[in-house]
């Protein structure tokens, strides 16, 4: 598994697809899902943070779901926004989301074979 993180609109997906040659059909995206592309079989999960947010909203455990995805798809590439670099939100749900996503990403980074942070479209390998 590999993890690619960075801020909004940093060109993360473009960077990953260009680097790996993975076709867009194999990208699972919770925002605009490719038909028949489930996250447990996709080569790339884009907008991973949105997936975590959606699960929290549905009252499901994102930690359990992530474990399940990794068990069935150990070679997946995960792309996520970093959302923790701001003023602590006044809304408790938003605070919970930031904290949970942060911890999940730390866990993924620990397991990942490679972690890169994308800044202005440039990949900085941090693991």
């Amino acid at each position, binding site marked *: 598994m590999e993890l690619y993180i960075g801020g909004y609109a940093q060109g993360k997906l473009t960077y990953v697809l260009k680097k790996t040659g993975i076709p867009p059909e194999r990208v699972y995206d919770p925002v605009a899902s490719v038909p028949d592309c489930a996250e447990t079989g996709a080569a790339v999960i884009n907008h991973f943070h949105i997936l975590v947010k959606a699960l929290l909203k549905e009252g499901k455990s994102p930690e359990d779901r992530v474990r399940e995805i990794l068990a069935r798809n150990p070679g997946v590439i995960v792309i996520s926004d970093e959302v923790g670099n701001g003023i602590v939100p006044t809304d408790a749900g938003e605070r919970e989301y930031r904290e949970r996503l942060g911890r999940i990403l730390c866990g993924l*980074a620990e397991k990942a074979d490679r972690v890169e942070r994308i800044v202005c479209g440039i990949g900085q390998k941090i693991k």
Partner: protein
Amino acid sequence: MMVLITGGSGSGKSAYAEKTAVSLAGKGPLYYLATMKVYDGEGRKKVDRHRNLRAGKGFLTIEQPTGILLAVSQMNRGKGTVLLECLSNLVANEMFASKKIRREKEVADQLCAELCSLAEHTEHLVIVTNNVFEDGIPYEETTRAYMEALGRVNAFIAARADAVTEVVVGIPVPIKGDLL
């Protein structure tokens, strides 16, 4: 040695800061300066989580939400390594503790002086701060003043620190100096 550690919420900066402080301290005294004020269950949960993280590592915890130099008299194991967590709470406490909100420059100047003085009472000072600067939201005046004060203290400490490290998804990334 002085080390500044930054990162966002849930970035793993606390765990890394503890590891750094423990390794710097060696067999010497180890203090944890807690600056967070507990207001509710969520704050309590956060404090408990940090307490569990620190358990068994030999830290003497000193709670000092304002007036950080008052902690010096409680360091009764002698001069040692201090882990201060975190600057973002300390700035907020100093700024908003009294009825009248204090000016950002006044708060920043006071903290810069106090932290310099604190450093002189330590063998090693590890300071945790928080990256609250990159969500692009145009906050109202009070929050902007807070961000300004924290930004000033961060830059002041970073200029004097031997190492500045950003923790990203649990991974330390050197900003200044080498990783410890």
